[in-house]
């Protein structure tokens, strides 16, 4: 059976929250609220996470990995260039001077942290992405969108819930 996408638009977060809560407690066959529901909003609204339920963020692991890896590699690079066989005579000074190398390691640490965090963001947020089957420019303006993916048989019940909470607009499209 083919999947269908529905997008309902609402005026504000309060209305959207009521819909989401009802969808999460409903038991519509062919629709799973945890996996098949996406909230689209024009602003970052931390309260959305409260009503859609906990979802993990893993960007910080990229940060830890990137900063540690690039910081360590940076130090190894600098130290190895100082300690190579052809290095000039140091006149009794340390071959690998730790204090000045720490300055560079610090910069590498931050460089790696920032770059890999952004890479992690792209991976975790699924960007760059193709336009999803249903999209309304109103979502980037002032409306809250609730997009659901469901079996064909579940669409009537879902539309009913959307309409009950006075959706401004409901769009529908056959999925891929």
């Amino acid at each position, binding site marked *: 059976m083919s999947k269908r996408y529905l997008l309902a638009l609402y005026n504000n977060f309060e209305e959207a929250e009521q819909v989401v809560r009802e969808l999460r407690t409903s038991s519509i066959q062919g629709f799973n609220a945890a996996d098949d529901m*996406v*909230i*689209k*909003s*024009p*602003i*970052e*609204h*931390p309260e*959305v*996470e409260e009503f*859609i339920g906990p*979802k993990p*963020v893993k*960007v*910080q692991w990229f*940060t830890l990995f990137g900063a540690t890896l690039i910081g360590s590699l940076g130090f190894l690079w*600098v130290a190895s*260039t*100082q300690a*190579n*066989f*052809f*290095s*000039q005579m140091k006149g009794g000074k340390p071959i690998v*001077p730790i204090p*000045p*190398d720490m*300055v*560079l390691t*610090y*910069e*590498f640490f*931050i*460089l790696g*942290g*920032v*770059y890999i*965090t*952004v890479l*992690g*963001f*792209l991976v*975790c*947020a*699924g*960007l*760059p*992405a*193709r*336009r*999803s089957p249903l*999209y309304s*420019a109103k*979502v*980037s*303006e*002032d409306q809250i*969108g609730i997009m659901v993916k469901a079996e064909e048989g579940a669409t009537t019940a879902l539309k009913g819930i959307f309409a009950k909470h006075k959706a401004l607009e409901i769009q529908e499209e056959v999925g891929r």
Partner: protein
Amino acid sequence: MTKDIREDIAWAKINQDVLKSLETPRPAYWVILAVALSVFGVGLGCEIYQYQMGMGVSNLDNPHAWALYIGSFIFWIGMSHSGTLLSAILHIMHADWRKPIYRFAEAMTTFSLITAALFVAVHLGRVWQIYYALPYPNERWAWPNWQSPLLWDAMAVFTYLSSSMIFLYVGMIPDLAICRDNMHSGWRKKLYTLMALGWEGTDRQWRNFRMTYLTVACFLIPLAVSVHSIVSTDFAVSQQPGMHVTSFPPYFVAGALYSGCAAIISLFIILRYVFRFEEYMTLPILRKVVRLTFAIAMVWTYLNCVEFAATWYGHDPAEKAVLVQKAIGPYAPFFWTMIFCGSVVPFAMMVKKWQTSIPIMFAVSLLLNLGMFLERWMIISPTLSHDYWPWQWDHNQWPSMIQWGIVFGSFGFFVTLFMVFCKVFPSVSMYEVKEMVYHRSLHSKKAESAAPEGFVAEELAVKGAN
């Protein structure tokens, strides 16, 4: 007007107002752009002349090899500070009044860093050998000296520039999606579509976006502090009298924040007018920036006093001679102008009425930046003209018109890049202004419902006025 922003602005209107700035600015925009391009043209002409004739035309000599070029380098690095650093600090502290002004401040950071980087090439003379500055080994496999602060500097500036650009871009992605959705077809539409990366504002995207933005902000704060303290080590690690000063790193960071804040005030006023952003870049927000600038001005003044006192009461005659030279020698007019602009003029910011006066604050911000430019020049030239030995004394060194021309040209270069950016990309963050309006209206509603009638309005009015 007592509130930072009106809480009843419709979200659609925010989009409309900001998108309008990308299409039809006031005619003053084109005047500013034309003047900036002309000034840049003068600087470019001077640089081409210097390139063809050699460094002699700049009137630099040995030991006076740095002068305005490196002074300008520090000035532009310093100006870059407030944008990203303040944006990151205020973001972490949830100071939401940053939201209408942080985008242009971050752009200012990026473009002033690019301008600063130009001076590295300009002061070299042999521009075609700029690649010598890259860390690669020579034919005997000896690498550059990693212990040199100049190399730390290159690394720090590169890290700061690239991280600031990333911070600016990541923070702009949701707005680029708005531009993509609202622009008619053409090169702009293609550009925004490409840069928005398919952003749709899903909960997954926002969740990861928030974490990323916060993390990068956390990295940028120590990075920004490290950049200017490393720039200060270019001088402080040397043995030159007047430069070998322990308090240089905090002094440089305070000076950088100071000039950056002053530049934010100037650009705030310019953008507010040319793009008709009166509803977003409001006078209460200007007042907050002005107060912040005043506080930093006092820190800078204090650190100046520390430096002078340490030199005066120290036992290094060469150090003391440089300080005396600054105060009564050939550079005295510039030194005292620096003190006046940097430590006396900011007291105008204490007058409550003037804090929101556009003409007065514009004039004050320009004077502050003049003071900060002179400060950077006064770090370099007095020392190089009055070193340890009499044969090194070079009191009559004066930058040639070519040197001045290139320095003025850099201002044209910066303003050109900045104004083009503000015309192509939204200089006010639409989604964050919406958040600000939304959360403030929620807060007001909650306060109204919790407090006795009449009390809240009175309290909010008092808070806003303060």
